[in-house]
């Protein structure tokens, strides 16, 4: 009966109900977006780091991977040291460099990764062959488009350029053997990969050096312990576990989390305010009706229940609508933030995580309940005789 009464009451004031649902929907959408923002980056980043299964990264001391041009000397020695730990399953040294590709009288610049194709974790081959020969190079679609090149073409690639003499150094002819998607690459980045020895040879000075090591631990091994061991064994590098990397990114992007928290809290509060206002107006109008229900013997708690049900119905409908609205706006906002220079394409700022989303919307509905209780209780507790008298006068 109470549910039927609540439903009938909402239908009676259609416009008001629709308006309130809309208001709550907007609050729900904002709340959802903020929850997605608060947790999205971290989870998205974690997924990215773990996508190829490398749990630890070694970077030059005091830096984050590819933060600087610094390199780590002694690839061979470091690899041998790492192999001594039985918990380490795979080691992938990576050398990064800028390259210039001469196409006609144009100079297209891009980035190159020197890798070992048997253990690399930086790209996914989309078509063609991997860099199994010294003169092979794989490139991403962005670079190929810039060059107007295809798989099978030969490129003139240089690692150095002297602007004073306008000459290139470290030049070599490389054949495009495959197309690749670079996992950590930004959307507008021209990326390529070749064998590390090839890039080293082209670079001249930079022998037996790497910009980064990626380390995969044995299944069941404790990555943090391995990280600590590496720290002790190799004091000249910084070993970064997934957790550390995420913590560092968290710190840099803490602004967005704080923004998310503040806007999320405001949304929740406004949703609460809306429902409270609606319920208050609704019960004030029905003071007489409520007094009569009490007079004929309906208990206070049952009256409150019926009124609160109205608030809950509005919150629920608003939450459902808000979910759809929130997902749309999140996508739009994510597009904006994805334009961050140097941001890996795979990173999403707004990530939908069911558990977090349902918790947030659940909180909104719960606040809808709370918002209705006080005005309902007040209305149901008014002295019956006085209410009836006031209604008679009115």
């Amino acid at each position: 009966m109470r549910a039927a009464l609540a439903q009938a009451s909402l239908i009676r004031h259609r416009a008001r109900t629709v308006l309130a649902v809309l208001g709550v929907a907007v609050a729900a959408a904002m709340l959802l977006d903020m929850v997605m923002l608060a947790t999205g980056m971290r989870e998205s980043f974690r997924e990215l780091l773990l996508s190829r299964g490398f749990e630890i990264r070694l970077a030059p001391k005091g830096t984050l991977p590819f933060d600087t041009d610094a390199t780590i000397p002694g690839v061979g020695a470091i690899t041998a040291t790492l192999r001594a730990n039985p918990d380490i399953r795979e080691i992938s040294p990576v050398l990064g460099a800028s390259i210039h590709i001469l196409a006609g009288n144009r100079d297209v610049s891009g980035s190159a990764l020197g890798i070992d194709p048997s253990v690399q974790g930086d790209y996914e081959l989309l078509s063609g062959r991997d860099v199994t020969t010294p003169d092979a190079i794989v490139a991403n679609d962005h670079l190929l488009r810039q060059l107007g090149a295809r798989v099978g073409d030969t490129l003139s690639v240089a690692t150095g350029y002297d602007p004073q003499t306008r000459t290139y150094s470290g030049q070599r002819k490389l054949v495009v053997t495959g197309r690749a998607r670079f996992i950590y690459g930004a959307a507008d980045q021209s990326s390529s990969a070749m064998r590390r020895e090839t890039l080293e040879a082209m670079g001249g000075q930079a022998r037996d050096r790497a910009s980064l090591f990626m380390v995969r631990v044995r299944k069941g091994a404790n990555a943090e312990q391995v990280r600590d061991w590496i720290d002790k064994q190799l004091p000249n590098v910084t070993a970064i576990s997934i957790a550390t990397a995420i913590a560092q990114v968290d710190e840099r992007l803490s602004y967005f989390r704080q923004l998310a928290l503040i806007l999320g809290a405001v949304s929740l509060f406004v949703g609460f305010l809306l429902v409270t206002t609606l319920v208050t107006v609704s019960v004030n109008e029905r003071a007489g009706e409520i007094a009569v229900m009490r007079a004929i013997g309906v208990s206070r708690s049952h009256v409150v229940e019926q009124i609160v049900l109205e608030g809950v119905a509005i919150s629920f409908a608003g939450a459902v609508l808000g979910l759809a609205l929130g997902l749309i706006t999140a996508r739009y906002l994510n597009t904006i933030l994805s334009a961050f220079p140097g941001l890996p394409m795979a990173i999403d700022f707004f990530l939908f995580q069911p558990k977090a989303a349902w918790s947030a919307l659940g909180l909104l509905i719960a606040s809808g309940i709370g918002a209705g209780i006080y005005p309902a209780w007040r209305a149901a507790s008014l002295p019956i005789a006085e209410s009836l008298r006031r209604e008679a006068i009115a």
Partner: protein
Amino acid sequence: MSARVESPIVSLRDVRRDYALGAERVHALQGVTLDVERGDYVAIVGPSGCGKSTLLNLIGVIDQPTSGTVAIAGRRVDAMSDREATQFRLRNIGFVFQRFYLLPILSALENVALPMAEAKVSKAVRIERAAELLRYVGLGNRERHRPSELSGGEQQRVAIARALANGPTLLLADEPTGELDARTGAEIISLFQRLNADGTTIVVVTHDEDLASASRRKVHIRDGRVVDA
């Protein structure tokens, strides 16, 4: 052989009711003592502001006296908690108001069934009983109509049927013909007479001379006091 003396169904002893109106204190009732016997049909009459409605509210346990005692069917009701009073009203008192106060979002049948739903009567039983009550008040063919689709007289009859839903000990009516024209009012008056003839104890508060005349006993109130019972 002496006749068995039944205790009155309503018993008020030296009842006072004061309340604040702004900075002033209003003495709505000033020491009212009154009995209503089972099966009686009492009309409480008096000029505006004399305290008749206040008296009815106290009998109906929707208000509490400042002092004095009120007993309904042998039970003290003047100091009940809200919960006890609500339950008592639900099962023992039927209230009819001047302005009907039907829930506009429910049909006539649903309005009559509402007190039974609160009393946890099963749906099938309460639907049947509500239909029966509507037939009793002459509205068997108007079950599904909303209050906005009923005339004033019809609405008041639905309100009376609602008041009878849980088989109350006492039926109280505050100016039941106040919003009705003479002809419709007469229909309500004859309905009350039929109810009383069928055994319902009725207390009405009224300005309506015809309604007062139809009762068995008149109680005159003036300035919060019974002047003639």
